[in-house]
């Protein structure tokens, strides 16, 4: 196969050095900006195919976090000194930057510890607005983060949790929607992109129906922000959550974006300093939104660093990154298919998927697959990927998953395919 043709690459960006013939959409690969990718694993070049678990970080993000600690470290909001003002500017600057990235005013962006915390904030925060018999509609392909908090809420408040089943093709069975979505449905919570099937769900379509029914719509965008073009308004939802660490940003940081009226409906789940207005020994009143949801000292260092990740995405342009992931996904689907004997999950068409492919080899258990691939420097994830009910639906306890970031090239997929061959050979297959 011939070398990939690359789009005009900005300075510091090397063209995709993949082997695929169909790489015209592929565009540049940003590997050089990610210092970790220079390391070796077991004496081999690291082939990192686990970006759906966490992405690697551009050097600019790592440097921004260190710079914060070296120059501006202070607690926020409460200080009048120069460091406190600088730290507050960086922290609030991150909120505004995320708002701009999603197309929202800063006040509608709540800073959290991650997507999981943000989903717990929504589920817990809605508790006082719900009554026994109210219904929550989720899907069978949810990550535990968008499933267990609703089960807990239902248990505590006497609610009913229903779910949209997954078809054999790995899509939501939308035909069931009219029956599942009814007058008692108060919340519809679903993932934008499945972290196992890769399926991109028709969120805006479902949201329109749900909102017409008077239900709030919660979108788990952990696998889509930073990977595909997305504006808050286009999804037509009430709440959207994601984690910085899956978006080329630092750990310990995530966001809840919401419509102003929807945020106003949430009761604060975590309480303490920074989120109050007046406190006596008997009672407390809450600060305005978004501070109301941000109890205690936030992760200022991570917030100071995250804008550098969004800058990297914007510089590459999200459209180009999306094309690159489609190209990688298409190539991965093609080569895995060609390998034979593998079960591959999710839609066949790469353009309808996020940048990940889960597969199962009946000859090699996923743990052994991951272990043997790792011995060749290829990092994939094996397990239930925090989606046990979906795996039950797929009829397996575990799958192997290869997932892509802006730094991957087609030769990474070649390494994966070679590795699968090697794993089979070890098991005499």
């Amino acid at each position, binding site marked *: 196969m011939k070398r990939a043709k690359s789009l005009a690459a900005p300075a510091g960006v090397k063209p995709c050095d993949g082997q695929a013939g169909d790489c015209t959409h592929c565009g540049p690969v940003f590997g050089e900006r990610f210092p970790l990718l220079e390391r070796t694993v077991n004496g081999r070049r690291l082939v990192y195919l686990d970006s759906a678990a966490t992405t690697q970080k551009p050097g600019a993000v790592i440097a921004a976090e260190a710079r914060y600690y070296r120059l501006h470290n202070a607690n926020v*909001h*409460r*200080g*009048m000194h120069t460091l*406190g*003002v600088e730290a*507050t*500017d960086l922290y609030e600057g991150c909120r505004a930057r995320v708002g701009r990235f999603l197309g929202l005013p800063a006040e509608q962006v709540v800073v959290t510890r991650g997507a999981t915390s943000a989903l717990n904030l929504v589920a817990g925060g809605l508790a006082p607005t719900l009554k026994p018999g109210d219904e929550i509609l989720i899907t069978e392909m949810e990550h535990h983060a968008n499933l267990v908090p609703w089960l807990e809420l239902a248990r505590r408040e006497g609610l009913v949790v229903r779910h949209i089943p997954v078809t054999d093709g790995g899509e939501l069975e939308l035909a069931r929607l009219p029956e599942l979505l009814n007058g008692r449905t108060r919340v519809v919570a679903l993932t934008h992109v499945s972290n196992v099937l890769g399926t991109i769900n028709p969120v805006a379509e479902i949201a329109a129906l749900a909102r017409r029914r008077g239900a709030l719509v919660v979108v788990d965008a952990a696998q889509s922000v930073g990977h595909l073009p997305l504006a808050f308004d286009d999804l037509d939802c009430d709440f959207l959550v994601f984690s910085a660490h899956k978006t080329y940003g630092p750990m310990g940081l995530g966001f809840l974006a919401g419509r102003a009226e929807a945020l106003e409906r949430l009761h604060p789940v975590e309480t303490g300093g*920074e989120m*109050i*207005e*007046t406190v006596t020994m008997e009672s407390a009143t809450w*600060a*305005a939104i978004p*501070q109301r949801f941000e109890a205690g000292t936030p992760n200022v260092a991570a917030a100071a660093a995250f804008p550098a990740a969004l800058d990297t995405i914007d510089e590459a342009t999200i459209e180009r990154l999306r094309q690159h992931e489609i190209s990688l996904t298409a190539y991965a689907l093609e080569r895995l298919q060609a390998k034979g004997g593998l079960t591959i999950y999710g839609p066949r068409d790469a353009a309808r998927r996020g940048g990940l492919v889960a597969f199962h080899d009946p000859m090699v258990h996923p743990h052994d697959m991951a272990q043997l691939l790792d011995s060749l420097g290829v990092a994939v994830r094996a397990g239930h990927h925090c989606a046990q009910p979906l795996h039950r639906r797929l009829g397996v306890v575990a799958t192997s998953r290869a997932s892509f970031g802006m730094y991957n090239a087609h030769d990474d997929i070649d390494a994966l395919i070679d590795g699968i061959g090697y794993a089979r050979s070890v098991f005499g297959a």
Partner: protein
Amino acid sequence: MNGGMDELYREVILDHHRRPRGQQPLPGPADARAEGKNPSCGDELLLELACAGEAITAAHVACHGCAIATASGSILAELVPGRTPEQARALAEAFREAMHSPDGALPDSLDPGDLEVLTGVRKFPARVKCALLPWITLLSALEARDGKAAGLPATTEA
């Protein structure tokens, strides 16, 4: 003074802080009233207005806050009487806007008096809330009077 302190603590501001106007209670019952607070630092302010005909006739300001908040309240007490509620609101809104704009200019047509000096505070982001507190409270008092709000305490965080 160094570190820009001469810009923040201008003589005019220090003077308002030393001898704040509007301390004396209103002669009769208030026609409009609001409490304001700055939750992050605990500053509190009570504002009462007396009105007659078209105009605000007197303002009473009781401020538990720093020099900037106190001076701002004093300037308010000086500037607001004699204006109509509409004019007072316009001034408060122009001031809020100026505090978030780079040049911080207030139109002469609003007759901003010492408020002009207070716009220098915008270069100290942490103190903008202090300067705004009396004016946000004014807006809330006027709104309450118009029956638009339930008279909730105003806050500079909103």
